[in-house]
């Protein structure tokens, strides 16, 4: 909502409040000012440190003034330019201009009625009207086509009022010549964010009411509608088919209007508020809407009469039929559905209720039509371009609609037809039906003022469904309990009364309940009735909360003290699952891995490179086609992350997060996973490292071993696996903890790797189910550190290639039992002497006794047992 300060001033005395004070008050009261646009009023001195976003310019009091044009003379050397005889209040000036909107007065001699304009003297700073966007410029003396030019008559764009640069500003006739322009029409516009709970304030009067309440000032009442009141009118009938959709419909009539431009001050205010002026009648509907919040719609009464065949005009509101059509005033034929509500007459639809009027019955300005028709000169043979409602005669009688609509309906309709408008913005957030009548009366009053029309006595008002009056009971205890402040019933009532709530302090109750948070056992109850412009005050406990918000806002959220929680601390139980994942992260980071976090959304094509899935939880409204499903593989995410860093010399990445397993028409299963990707060089290339080997299977395995050891798992086994299609069948292992499979890892299959841009080096990948890991119990306790000297010995054995190293080590450990405290494989060797299909495995063994020094003889005995066992089980031969 764009709020011109000048308009606000109509309703609240702003003396002593700067523009920034006002903006700050709104902002703290829940009506955030997102930007201040200065259109004349002085900008704060140090704009750079202003607390608000600002734009626009302040006008120099001495240099930019109201002036009058006394004669428009031709320029001696330029047909399109004119020279103005202008009086600026102190002296005569000759001003050069090309403004089209006074061009027709060129050479007509002294003007009978001087034209009031905004005059910028030499040296004043304004916007360059001819530049794209807003570029400041300072007026300097120059010769234009042989004539001295040093000052300007200004357009709205040049003064920062609007984008308008079609012609100069033509001020109203009563503008005082010589007055500083800032004093006459200097303004600032607050861009106020209207949250859903503030829908009632999407209008000047609503914001004025809030400001008055928060600053403790008086709210001026609306201009007196004077003789407009009166009984029921008889110029139309109204039939409401469904009061749920249309709780109220009000019509007023004004006759003999003359359609013409609105006064300049009206146009200026509308433009500042972001609405384009059209004509006095349309402007009156918009002005009343911006002022009061009730969107109005004006019909050409004669068109309706004609459609009614000279019978009584009858307005019918109803839901549209599916497929029904209406051409709206933007000349688009729209196909309607049953959720749309229509305003019709007996002949058919006239407008889409609350969203947009129809073309046929709109208020018609013939003069504008002629101008437009002239602007588009038809080529010979082509039909004249024209609107379908080219009626030839301007509207003279206006039927004015003010209504209340079901906000859900309007919201859905505006969305469906993609018609966001000032009207639908308000109606889709709820407008109180009481405003329908007020709006129509205000609209008629403005039309009469600006068009010379005569208001027909009475209104036609059909009001089948008045909203329930909202009455909520609150107590001083509620305020203490929810806000933590102690206010008396009178104080609470006076805060709420500033927003026009009616408060009745009902009684004093001795509350016998004892609670630690009550300082007093007396509570005063206040019965609060919501004012007739609000639909947002609920019932019961909701109503209480709604009123607490109002008390807090008007009291001032900033004034509420800060206290510490006195309520008991709940039992502290932690979150073991969350902490477990954090521990996994910590260990991996310690091992040198970098954590990545990817999008949960991916596409089957992306993931298909790794492993194809048929079933996915699919996004119904993806933002891009390559993020249209929820991921099923975390490893695919991690590989994509690696791919993005393909230029890195070495990558060690991991990600922890959920994958999503679809469940038909229900919530997908969210399964936590860990993925690891390693690729690149084992050591960074540097001045003394030239040819580091590439990371391989065992680099990954080592990290996995350390991860599982860090998690204190002892029973960890690795077995080859060929069941993972994306892994190299000979370089893939599954990991079991306590006998249960927890993950797989290995080198990426060459065919899989081909599908990624991951360079030439091997890519190692692992995928773990950390939920399974979490559920397994780790071992605790340490192994005592041996006190007595051990015996160290190396043995090398020759076995067939097919014998797994883990099997040999297992046999050594099993046979050696507690006496062998450490087994370390230090060499794997193959050559011709050993024989084809054979390998030599060399182990360092540590023989250790817990209670004494191990002797060489004892160690030899154990070794002999081990060698025998190996010879027997895996046909090993001791290498000499």
């Amino acid at each position, binding site marked *: 909502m764009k709020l011109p300060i000048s308009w606000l001033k109509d309703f609240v005395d702003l003396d002593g409040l700067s523009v920034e004070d006002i903006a700050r008050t709104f902002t*703290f*009261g*829940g009506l*955030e000012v997102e930007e201040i646009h200065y259109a004349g009023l002085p900008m704060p001195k140090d704009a750079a*440190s202003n*607390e608000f976003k600002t734009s626009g310019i302040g006008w120099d009091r001495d240099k930019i003034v109201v002036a009058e044009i006394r004669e428009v003379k031709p320029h001696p050397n330029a047909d399109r330019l004119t020279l103005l005889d202008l009086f600026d209040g102190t002296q005569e000036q000759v001003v050069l201009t090309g403004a089209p909107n006074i061009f027709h007065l060129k050479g007509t001699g002294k003007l009978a009625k001087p034209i009031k304009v905004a005059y910028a003297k030499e040296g004043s700073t304004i916007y360059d009207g001819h530049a794209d966007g807003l570029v400041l410029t300072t007026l300097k003396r120059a010769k234009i086509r042989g004539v001295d030019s040093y000052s300007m008559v200004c357009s709205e764009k040049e003064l920062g009022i609007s984008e308008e640069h079609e012609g100069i500003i033509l001020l109203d006739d009563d503008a005082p010549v010589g007055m500083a322009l800032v004093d006459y029409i200097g303004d600032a516009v607050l861009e106020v964010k209207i*949250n*859903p709970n*503030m829908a009632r304030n999407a209008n000047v009067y609503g914001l004025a009411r809030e400001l008055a309440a928060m600053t403790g000032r008086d709210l001026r009442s609306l201009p007196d509608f004077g003789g407009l009141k009166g009984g029921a009118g008889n110029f139309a009938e109204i039939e409401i088919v469904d009061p749920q959709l249309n709780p109220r419909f009000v019509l007023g009539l004004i006759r003999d209007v003359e359609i013409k431009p609105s006064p300049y001050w009206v146009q200026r205010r509308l433009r500042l508020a972001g609405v384009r002026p059209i004509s006095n009648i349309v402007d009156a509907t918009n002005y009343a809407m911006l002022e009061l919040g009730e969107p109005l719609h004006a019909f050409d009464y004669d068109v309706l009469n004609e459609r009614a065949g000279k019978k009584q005009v009858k307005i019918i509101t109803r839901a549209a039929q599916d497929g029904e059509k209406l051409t709206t005033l933007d000349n688009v034929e729209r196909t309607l559905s049953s959720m749309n509500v229509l305003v019709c007459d007996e002949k058919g639809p006239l407008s889409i209720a609350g969203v947009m009027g129809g073309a046929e019955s709109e208020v018609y300005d013939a003069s504008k039509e002629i101008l437009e028709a002239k602007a588009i000169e038809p080529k010979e043979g082509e039909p004249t371009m024209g609107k379908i409602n080219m009626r030839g005669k301007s509207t003279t009688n206006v039927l004015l609609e003010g209504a209340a609509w079901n*906000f859900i309906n309007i919201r859905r309709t505006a969305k469906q037809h993609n018609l966001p408008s000032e009207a639908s913005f308000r109606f889709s957030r709820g407008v109180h039906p009481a405003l329908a009548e007020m709006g129509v009366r205000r609209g008629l009053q403005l039309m009469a003022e600006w068009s010379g029309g005569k208001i027909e006595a009475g209104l036609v008002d059909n009001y089948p469904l008045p909203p329930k009056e909202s009455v909520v009971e609150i107590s001083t205890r509620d305020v203490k*309990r*929810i806000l933590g402040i102690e206010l008396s019933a009178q104080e609470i009532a006076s805060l709420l009364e500033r927003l026009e709530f009616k408060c009745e302090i009902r009684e004093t109750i001795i509350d016998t309940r004892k609670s630690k948070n009550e300082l007093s056992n007396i509570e005063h109850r206040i019965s609060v009735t919501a004012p007739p412009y609000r639909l947002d005050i609920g019932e019961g*406990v909701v109503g209480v*909360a*709604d009123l*607490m*918000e109002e008390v*807090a806002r008007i009291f001032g*959220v*900033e004034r509420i003290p*800060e*206290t*510490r*929680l006195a*309520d008991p*601390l*709940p039992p*502290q139980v932690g*979150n073991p699952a*969350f902490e477990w994942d*954090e521990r996994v*992260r910590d260990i991996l*980071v310690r091992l*040198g*891995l*970098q*954590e990545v*976090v*990817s*999008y*949960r959304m991916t596409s089957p094509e992306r993931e298909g490179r790794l492993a194809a899935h048929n079933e996915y*939880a699919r*996004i*119904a*409204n*993806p*933002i891009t086609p390559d993020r249209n499903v*929820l991921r099923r593989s975390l490893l695919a995410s991690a590989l994509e992350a690696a791919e*993005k*860093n393909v230029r890195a010399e*070495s990558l060690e*990445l991991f990600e922890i*997060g959920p994958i*999503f397993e679809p469940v*038909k*028409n229900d*919530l*997908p299963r*969210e399964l936590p996973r860990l993925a690891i990707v390693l690729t690149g060089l084992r050591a960074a290339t*540097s001045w003394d490292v030239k040819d580091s080997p590439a990371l391989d299977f065992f680099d990954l395995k080592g990290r996995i071993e350390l991860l599982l050891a860090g998690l204190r798992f002892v029973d960890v086994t690795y077995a080859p696996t060929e069941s993972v299609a994306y892994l190299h069948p000979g370089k893939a292992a599954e990991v079991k903890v306590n006998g249960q499979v927890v993950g797989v890892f290995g080198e990426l299959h060459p065919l899989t790797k081909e599908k990624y841009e991951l360079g030439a080096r091997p890519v190692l990948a692992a995928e773990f189910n950390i939920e399974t890991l979490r559920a397994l119990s780790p071992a605790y306790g340490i192994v005592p550190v041996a006190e007595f000297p051990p015996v160290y010995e190396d043995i090398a054995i020759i076995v067939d290639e097919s014998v797994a190293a883990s099997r040999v080590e297992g046999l050594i450990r099993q046979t050696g039992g507690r006496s062998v405290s450490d087994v370390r494989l230090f060499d794997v060797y193959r050559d011709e002497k050993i024989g084809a299909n054979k390998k030599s495995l060399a182990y360092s063994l540590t023989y250790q006794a817990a209670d004494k020094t191990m002797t060489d003889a004892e160690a030899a005995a154990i070794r002999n047992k081990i060698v025998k066992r190996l010879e027997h089980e895996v046909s090993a031969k001791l290498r000499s």
Partner: protein
Amino acid sequence: MDQLNDIEKAALDALASVVTEEALQAWKTAQLGRSSPLMQVFAGLGKLSKEERPAVGSAANRVKVAIEAALAARETEIKAAALAKSLEEDALDVTLPGRTVNVGRLHPSTQQLRRVLDILKEMGFQVYTSREVETDEMNFQMLNFPLHHPARDMQDSFYVESEGRGDNPILMRTHTSPGQIRAMREYAATNPQNPPPIRIALPGMCFRYEQITSRSEMQFNQVEGLAVGEGITFADLKGTLSDFARRMFGQNARTRFRADHFPFTEPSAEMDVECFVCGGKGCSVCKRSGWLEILGCGMVHPVVLQNGGYDPKRYSGFAWGMGPERQLMLRYKIDDIRYFWGNDVRFLEQF
């Protein structure tokens, strides 16, 4: 006697040209060895007369001491010279880069989540996590966003395809708040008549239907806090969050509260923290205002309490929500939110 003087002179003269350890050893053998002239003098002492013996003996001793002292001095010199030489030879170019080890790092969002959660844990707020894909009911309806309510405009959602669910479609959660309902229900189930107090922190990934640009993302982390109990007030909310801000942004961090609106809290507010980059003087980070919008907060709406199994007439509470990525962007002057899920290690390495 003259002979002794000659021996001394010859020895010391010879020593002058000795510069290596080996030569020194040879010189030592030559001058002090068994067959050296000096030792020959000692060996010949017995043949001298009683009268001559003491004088020659003492003179020979003096020469021996002198030669030994010269030897020791030269030995020290030669060692020092050798050491100096070897030190010089071993000198490195200390400006060459050092050898590094591979350092692992947490994703910056994880780091920031931890900072936030560590503080909250100390304040008694325990971590509560819940699912990322939710029903409309849990994500909106239970949180006082009725169907078709204008408040829903503020949170455009991603929907997950499903059929026959009517007004309860499946969607990606737009905030961690559905966890509030889940947590309250879990707690309330333990004692439905007298539900226990709650203090939890709800971290996690959230999703909004937004184009990915430098300023907006389709997924982001959120941390919410929730306190429910008997007698929790808006004043407590202000105090607790100001405490949090001091822990998070510095001991002197000033806060201010502005009324705001969220469907699931009422009254609601926005908390600003004095800009920690410029100390409130105004800078590009705070857009010259001196304040940073850090979190939204408010008293838990009675409808939400009710939906969680807590009687709003008896219980009250507050909740707040904030964005770790936003906090990081402010703190580290990150001007493009796309860095976070871009997974470029050149970005990630900087944290």
